């Protein structure tokens, strides 16, 4: 047993596990509310951070690991939110039923959208996914009787979990926080295993060089579709949790939601799984912080954002990486020598390489091929 654990901790997934420690500390957030350092508002806010982090994580699977830029992840987020809320409102007050319906529905929708849009590539794929998401937005907006139109759905009941004598209501912010945290931990672990499985390797091969992956003999389209479906299911899950936290209105399907998910990915550093979650937390936290000081938070956020794109394209994780590989060796050469080459290699292989040297002019791809960063062929293989 311990040997197995040791092997797991030293395997190729080891660089992902520190994030559990982060989540553990994040799980201490309610303590501060309990001893009244800050109000319950921050408990709800922390829950929201986790939910949107989960949403950003779903985008990372498709964008950071498969190299497909989808501009319509909001479709799944919104479908999850609406399906969850409608099940709870009209069918039964059971979280498990709601989650089951959400997962199955987002599976079906993701498969259909994937089936139709993965036939084409690049910008066209991005636009088609955007179009599908916008169609759902219009549907939610116009189908007054079912979705509540622009008013959305309010008064979603908070179901209870547990076996009858020991029941906890999700309406309790503490319970809901830990429920969401549990979901995030499970999904994160599943994703870590997924991207390090042979299946995940194929996805990364497709991201790095689609043609070569095809020549090896993989049916690229099927793998892309599977990745799209997995991403859609996680997106739907995060949407349904969001419906439980807040109300649902057509804004969850708006393209701005999709854009924010992309922003979170970039902010945190895509292709790392933990990067997007951190990105979501930092993005929403800074948004909240700035908007409490000034009405013009968009301006400041936009400037920070442009700065990130220009000067730290690998996001916060990339900043940390630069810090570790440039600043630490400069300041503490002795420590660096001891930690040695191994750290350098892992960070290099985990974080997508986005060197400016990646030029499209020399690649024979046709125009309009939009691929996620990290597609350069000079990535070093792991382990």
């Amino acid at each position: 047993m311990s040997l197995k654990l040791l092997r797991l901790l030293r395997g190729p997934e080891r660089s992902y596990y520190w994030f559990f420690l982060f989540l553990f500390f994040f799980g201490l957030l309610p303590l501060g509310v309990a001893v009244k350092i800050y109000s319950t508002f921050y408990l709800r806010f922390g829950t929201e951070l986790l939910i949107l982090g989960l949403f950003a994580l779903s985008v990372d699977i498709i964008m950071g690991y498969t190299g497909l830029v989808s501009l319509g992840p909001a479709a799944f987020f919104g479908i999850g939110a609406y399906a969850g809320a409608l099940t709870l409102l009209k069918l039964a007050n059971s979280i498990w039923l709601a989650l089951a319906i959400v997962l199955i529905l987002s599976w079906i929708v993701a498969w259909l959208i994937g089936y139709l849009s993965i036939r084409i590539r690049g910008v066209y794929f991005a636009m088609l996914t955007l179009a599908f998401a916008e169609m759902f937005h219009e549907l939610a907006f116009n189908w007054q009787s079912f979705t509540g139109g622009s008013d959305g759905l309010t008064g979603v009941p908070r179901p209870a979990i547990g076996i009858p004598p020991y029941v906890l209501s999700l309406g309790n912010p503490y319970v809901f926080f830990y429920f969401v945290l549990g979901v995030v931990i499970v999904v994160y672990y599943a994703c870590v295993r997924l991207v390090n499985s042979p299946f995940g390797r194929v996805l990364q091969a497709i991201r790095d060089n689609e043609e070569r992956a095809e020549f090896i003999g993989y049916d690229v389209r099927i793998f892309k579709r599977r990745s799209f479906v997995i991403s859609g299911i996680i997106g739907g899950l995060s949407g349904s949790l969001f419906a439980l936290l807040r109300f649902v209105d057509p804004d969850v399907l708006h393209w701005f939601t999709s854009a924010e998910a992309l922003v979170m990915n970039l902010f945190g550093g895509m292709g790392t799984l933990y990067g997007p979650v951190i990105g979501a937390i930092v993005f929403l936290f800074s948004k909240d912080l700035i908007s409490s000081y000034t009405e013009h938070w968009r301006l400041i956020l936009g400037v920070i954002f442009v700065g990130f794109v220009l000067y730290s394209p690998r996001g916060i994780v990339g900043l940390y990486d630069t810090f570790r590989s440039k600043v630490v060796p400069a300041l503490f050469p002795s420590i660096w020598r001891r930690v040695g080459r191994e750290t350098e290699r892992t960070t290099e292989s985990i974080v997508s390489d986005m060197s400016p040297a990646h030029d499209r002019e020399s690649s024979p791809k046709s125009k309009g091929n939009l691929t996620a960063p990290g597609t350069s062929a000079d990535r070093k293989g792991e382990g």
Partner: protein
Amino acid sequence: MNSHTSRRFLLNAMILACICAGLIWLIFYQILPKMTIKIAFKQLLNGLTLGLMYVIIASGLSLIFGMMEVINFAHGALYMLGAYFGLTVFRLTGNFGLSLLVAPIIVGGVGMLLEYSTFRPLYGRSPLYHILLTFGLVLVIGNSAELVWGKAYHIFPRPKVLGVLDSFLGISYPRYRLFVLLVGVLISVFFWYMLKKTRFGLIIRAGTHNREITNAFGIDISRYFTVVFGFGVAIAGAAGVVMAPILSVHPHMGDGIIITAFIVVVVGGLGSLSGAALAGILIGVLESFSVILFPAFTGAMMYMVMVVVLLVRPQGLLGIEEIR
């Protein structure tokens, strides 16, 4: 003809038959009962006006994409900026013609500045970064406009000469919309002329076609990027000024149009200007007819058009490039 192509032919024929049946049902049971010639003509004119505005916004977008492969999400924000500058100039001088001339120049200048300071370092990186960068710029520009002009909706008064109704063929139609139609046609023709008949246009087309070979001929193509970006953005600014009296001027007026413009570009075929023109007019006309016929579907109309076009013809209506 092997079995694969014949099956494909059969599939296409079936799809075509379904579309035809749907169209017949639509025409005889949905459209004809609600239509008279007058309404149809009016909506056609409305559609053309709207469509031409889409065309000139989309062709700037298409030009920028074709030249530097940048997907410019900030195009709508600059369109909005054009409307605001136009409004300011109009309030200062009271001359609509002057604001139509000055605002696009200012917007073009802003665009060139943006290109030089922010886009330039990102060339050669993944196009995703441009999406993200321009998304950030949307936030910055939108909020700056809010800061300068406030959140309120501004009414842009129509110039007196154009603010009347014209009667012809038994219908009355606002003269301003006819003016918009004229401006749209003029800008499109100017655009076409510049691109197809001048040396400048020749270089742009060459750069769009193959950047490396153009460089090899001794033309420093990256020097043209700033100008092309400024030009593409300036005509979006002009569209903003022209549309401002029809709509009203507010900080979010660019949010919706950018998606429409992208759809027009994609439906027409990336980089194909005639395709963008065709698609813009098609979508404009369809939209203005669906306002009367299927009000609930107006917003979804262009997305449906795009989905159908992309699934049947992935490279867009007039796109020539092979998309696998």
